[in-house]
């Protein structure tokens, strides 16, 4: 892996979104990944619809939570994702209003990534932003800097939030993952969370995945 990488500066990441009072992080994590995969494979950055997943992905539970692995299947089975503009976010479940004609993006498959953070970094630099799930311990009060909670406080077994790895690097010799969150720009560092890299902090390496766009 290169020593540092940031997909934001390379145009592969849309602006930070806000899930509102809804446990839909899984949908934002997956659309962020698909946005990146589409950009890298098709050359266009499109902001994609989380609301489509809330309404139409029946394997998941909309604002009550969901799993990225299910969401990839739903996107594949539905026939793609509409854009944010065409199917805008409401923050609560509605009836499915997906139209295959309006789908702008498709995926071919999805893959589970290594739990080795060095390999994750290499994959990210080569292939794009990665959907991950983490333990959100401390994030309620996070303001800025690189978070590294004690392991017993941030167990990898108690995963409860899905986010998007968009880059990595070091700040004053402290290695970090740059993580796009979905709580708006008025949280964290303009909507981003920085988590220690290389120690399996908060289970960041336990549930990494990506869509495949051919």
């Amino acid at each position: 892996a290169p020593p540092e990488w940031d997909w934001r500066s390379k145009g592969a990441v849309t602006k930070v979104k806000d899930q509102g009072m809804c446990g839909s992080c899984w949908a934002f994590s997956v659309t962020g990944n698909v946005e990146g995969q589409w950009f890298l494979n098709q050359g266009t950055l499109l902001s994609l619809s989380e609301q489509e997943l809330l309404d139409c992905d029946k394997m998941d539970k909309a604002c009550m939570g969901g799993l990225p692995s299910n969401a990839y299947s739903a996107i594949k089975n539905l026939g793609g994702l509409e854009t944010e503009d065409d199917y805008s976010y409401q923050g609560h479940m509605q009836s499915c209003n997906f139209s295959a004609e309006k789908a702008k993006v498709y995926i071919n498959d999805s893959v589970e990534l290594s739990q080795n953070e060095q390999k994750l970094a290499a994959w990210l630099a080569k292939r794009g932003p990665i959907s991950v799930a983490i333990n959100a311990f401390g994030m309620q009060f996070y303001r800025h800097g690189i978070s590294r909670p004690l392991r017993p406080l941030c167990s990898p077994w108690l995963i409860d939030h899905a986010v998007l790895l968009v880059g990595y690097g070091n700040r004053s010799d402290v290695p970090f993952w740059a993580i796009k969150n979905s709580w708006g720009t008025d949280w964290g560092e303009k909507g981003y969370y920085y988590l220690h890299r290389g120690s399996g902090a908060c289970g960041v390496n336990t549930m990494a995945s990506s869509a495949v766009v051919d």
Partner: protein
Amino acid sequence: APAQPRAASFQAWGPPSPELLAPTRFALEMFNRGRAAGTRAVLGLVRGRVRRAGQGSLYSLEATLEEPPCNDPMVCRLPVSKKTLLCSFQVLDELGRHVLLRKDCGPVDTKVPGAGEPKSAFTQGSAMISSLSQNHPDNRNETFSSVISLLNEDPLSQDLPVKMASIFKNFVITYNRTYESKEEARWRLSVFVNNMVRAQKIQALDRGTAQYGVTKFSDLTEEEFRTIYLNTLLRKEPGNKMKQAKSVGDL
């Protein structure tokens, strides 16, 4: 040494005296707020003191609470047996209305009252946090520094409720919060103060460079935050099985 009264208004461990009864009941009610029936704690012993100024009284209380066993993963993160908590509360009574300014609880690891000063994770943690906080005075933003310094002040400082209320007011303005009633606002203030204590602990126990403090979620209880914004399905359900990606070297 056994706890001895340190002032005329200090009550040693025992059932709450008539003077401490109302604020103790209020603190217990706040502690149990949002808890389902069968998971609510019951009051054990209490000690504390009161300081009066103007039309208000500030109660500093320590109480033991008995929590029933919890085996429901929807309610508690890990199955726990019945446990005794030692809690520190600060309750402001102004013209008969109560506000919970501080709540901090931890499991008691020795039998508490009567056998000397209680030892608990809470008291040990507080000492550690206090020492760690002093090591990094420059690493916090201005707002959080002011909260930290407030929390480290004499808990009976007359200015504490006023200053904390001022920080809460700034939070309300910054994040455009509106509450349905004065009671709701008072409840949110008490949640906010508790959260500042939690943020202080998280700050002290972080080994990175992160700074924690006031955020737009600072008026939410931990349970509210978890229920509204987080996704516990991630740890419960296996989900759709995916293929393992090839490493980049194999591409």
